[in-house]
């Protein structure tokens, strides 16, 4: 009995001591924000306990994961060191540096695929299970914001010294009713034309620099004409490739909206089947495929397939994202063949304009949103991480390492691409030669135009709901696919699909939003007056009178 009692009291004392020690440490560290030098002197176990802000960073976008297999080495980290995997080591270095700068934060790199079609469902499940990364690409805006899938970062953005450097289009895209939900990633770009310079040379088409390619102010008619001229069916060469609607057909070039305010005021929007140019759009797609034979089409054609067609030399012009072209020219200089240089074979041009003077060049970036279930500390940490990753210490460390690595390997450094497409001002200039020595004139002039371009206002900024992007784009694609694959009268097709879209997609909003709608249209009018005056005079001011009337009763 005595022995038992002694043991019991010993255990009790131990428990009391350990609890009180924890309480003291809690007071000492957890309640107080430690500076890096204070954190550095903590015992290791206390360092572990102090890190109570977990930051889950997606490995594919900001992180670096050690190899799963150690191979012939002692450990995965040995493999990384001795194998010369500088990118992973730099990822670990940046992780450690960030944790030292932010002692409470523990960065965890996780695998989270953001680039495939599974992203939407994977994110939904991850968010519900509270296992999502701290930040991820923001897709299907603004619907996903309305769904509560992104945190409100308005305050954090306003405190950021580079806030004003955020591309206008990016801010517009991630703003709903005055609140900001996304930041721009470090790839400023736009939908542009990727074209084969050698094919253009053969067809005798030259730009303002005297080099093969379209002029920067080319129109949709030129686009169609050039597509025809570079087509050679016998050699299995086509002018362009279409994934159903494509992004550069008639509608895009002419700045046609696929939906306009519902003139009856019953709902917010209706499908824009009244403008006769929507019929022209369908007719011209059909003609390009059936008569001109300048477009290769297949139901399975998507972004990757279109680029594969181009890379394999079966298509001479495709719409593409400008940073990808610049990056390919550095990272894959022999992509178009071992005897050719990419920058001499592949060109970049702004998208063709409409006859109405519309300029369809809208600078964008990949928008990034944050997990709405994060605590305040986690959200702040995630925001700080993104700032560092996109333009701060993390970015510069990676760039310095890339410059050194490229020098050692005798390759062109990726730093030129990063600086070409960066939407922010980097803290340090790491370029040792001018951009002109690295990129051809067409790339630089397109980027110059892109940086000077402005993006028009979006309904979401005024608190107006927009259709679900994936659902709506699928519906528009179905319309174009029917125009391409059937011989049904285009008028009939347009009416049928308009009815379908109006019934399924646009049954929301109504009277309560009319004031917001007026504000939005006024803002767009002001925008075109200021930035696209030719388009305003030739088209927009007539268009709003005919098709953009907001019901008054």
């Amino acid at each position, binding site marked *: 009995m005595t022995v038992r009692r002694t043991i019991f009291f010993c255990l009790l004392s131990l428990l009391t001591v350990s609890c009180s020690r924890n309480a003291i440490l809690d007071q000492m560290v957890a309640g107080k924000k430690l500076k890096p030098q204070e954190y550095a002197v903590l015992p290791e176990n206390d360092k572990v306990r102090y890190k109570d802000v977990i930051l889950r960073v997606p490995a594919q976008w900001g992180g670096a994961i050690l190899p799963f297999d150690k191979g012939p080495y002692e450990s995965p980290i040995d493999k990384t060191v001795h194998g010369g995997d500088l990118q992973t080591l730099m990822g670990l270095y940046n992780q450690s540096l960030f944790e030292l700068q932010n002692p409470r934060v523990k960065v965890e790199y996780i695998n989270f695929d953001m680039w495939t079609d599974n992203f939407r469902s994977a994110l939904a499940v991850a968010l519900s299970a509270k296992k999502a990364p701290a930040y991820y690409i923001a897709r299907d805006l603004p619907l996903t914001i309305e769904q509560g899938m992104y945190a409100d970062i308005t305050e954090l953005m306003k405190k950021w010294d580079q806030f004003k450097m955020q591309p206008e289009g990016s801010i517009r895209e991630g703003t709903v009713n005055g609140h900001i939900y996304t930041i721009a990633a470090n790839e400023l770009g736009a939908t542009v034309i990727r074209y084969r310079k050698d094919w253009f040379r053969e067809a005798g088409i030259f730009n303002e620099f005297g080099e093969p390619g379209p002029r920067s102010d080319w129109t949709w008619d030129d686009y169609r004409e050039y597509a025809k001229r570079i087509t050679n069916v016998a050699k299995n060469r086509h002018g362009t490739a279409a994934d159903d609607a494509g992004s550069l057909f008639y509608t895009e070039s002419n700045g046609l909206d696929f939906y306009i305010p519902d003139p009856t005021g019953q709902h917010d929007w209706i499908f824009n089947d009244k403008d006769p140019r929507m019929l022209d759009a369908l007719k011209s797609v059909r003609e390009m495929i059936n008569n001109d034979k300048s477009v290769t089409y297949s139901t399975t054609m998507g972004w990757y397939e279109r680029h594969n067609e181009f890379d394999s030399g*079966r298509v001479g012009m495709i719409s593409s994202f400008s940073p990808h072209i610049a990056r390919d020219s550095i990272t894959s200089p022999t992509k178009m063949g071992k005897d050719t240089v990419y920058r001499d074979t592949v060109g970049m041009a702004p998208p063709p304009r409409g006859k109405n003077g519309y300029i369809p060049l809208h600078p964008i970036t990949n928008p990034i949103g944050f997990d709405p279930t994060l605590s305040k500390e986690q959200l702040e940490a995630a925001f700080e991480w993104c700032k560092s990753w996109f333009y701060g210490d993390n970015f510069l460390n990676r760039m310095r390492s890339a410059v050194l690595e490229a020098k050692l390997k005798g390759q062109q450094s990726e730093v030129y691409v990063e600086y070409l497409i960066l939407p922010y001002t980097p803290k340090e200039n790491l370029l040792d030669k001018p951009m002109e020595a690295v990129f051809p004139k067409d790339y630089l002039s397109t980027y110059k135009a892109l940086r000077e371009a402005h993006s028009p206002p979006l309904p979401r900024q005024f608190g107006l709901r927009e259709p679900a992007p*994936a659902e709506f784009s699928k519906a528009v694609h179905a*319309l174009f696919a029917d125009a391409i*694959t059937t011989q049904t009268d285009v008028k009939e097709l347009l009416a049928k699909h308009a009815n379908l879209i109006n*019934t*399924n997609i646009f049954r929301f909003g109504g009277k309560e939003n009319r004031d917001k709608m007026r504000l939005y249209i006024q803002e767009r009018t002001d925008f075109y007056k200021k930035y696209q005056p030719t388009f305003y005079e030739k088209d927009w001011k007539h268009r709003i009178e005919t098709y953009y009337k907001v019901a008054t009763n």
Partner: protein
Amino acid sequence: MPEPTPKTQGIGYKTLMAWLFTAPGLIAQLVFGWLPVLFSFVVSFQKYYFIKEPEFVGAKNFQDVAIDPLVITAFKNTLYFASLSIGLTFLLPIFVSILLMEMSRRTIRIMMILWFVPVASTAGITIWKYMYHPNLGLMNGILRGLGLHELKWLDDPNLAMFSLILPGIILFGPGLIYIAALQNVPEELYEAAEMEGASMLRKIWFITLPRLRPIIAMMLLFSIIGSMQVFELPFIMTGGGPGYATTTVVMYIYSLAFGGYNLGKATALAIVLFGVIMALVLIQRRFFPENIDETPKRA
């Protein structure tokens, strides 16, 4: 005192053991099977968000399903797919198997290997997408080689659905199941029929088909359920296109849920599909009994 044995403990022990051994299965079925079904009934009456609290909307989701013209299209496509699929991948192998059984043992073995190899070796549906490629695909390559016109396998709305079924004929191997079942039909039945002077057709009609009935009933059930729920074939190969030519009900459900983020309507449509499949299964069970000696009921 002797050790208690299952025998001495009687029914109590047996019952306990039975429950213990079936419990994991039952729990899994309950959690992953029945619970989502019950939950989906709740969701179908809500505006459901992934993060925010759901809102009760009454029967609105069902009303939306009722007025949606695409629902009709999706059901038409699904029924078309189901009929083609059942016709080509379910009925055809029955006849092929029966005819095969008339051949020598050696021929049967060779044919079974030929039938089985593609089922076991083909990488899957994705490869078919490339086989159908208009310029580079194997299918058009064969047609070109034969001097025939190329076909727009997946790009022609009238041909796309058939193109989706075609891999099923090759990849889905019910023929093997029928052959296995046919090998269990007693030889004496055929010998007796032959002695009575029965023709091949009469043997098939009066011996083979009735003996295959349990297998056919089961396969028909799976075939109806599977083809009504078809998703991966059109999702991977056509994305539901061209236009909506190959959009099936389950594809449309997926598109509503993860394209339109309209989980309420998607779930309501899933419940409608559940009802349709249940009705079809009940009809099948009523008119196509598994029992060999049971006569199909007349309506």
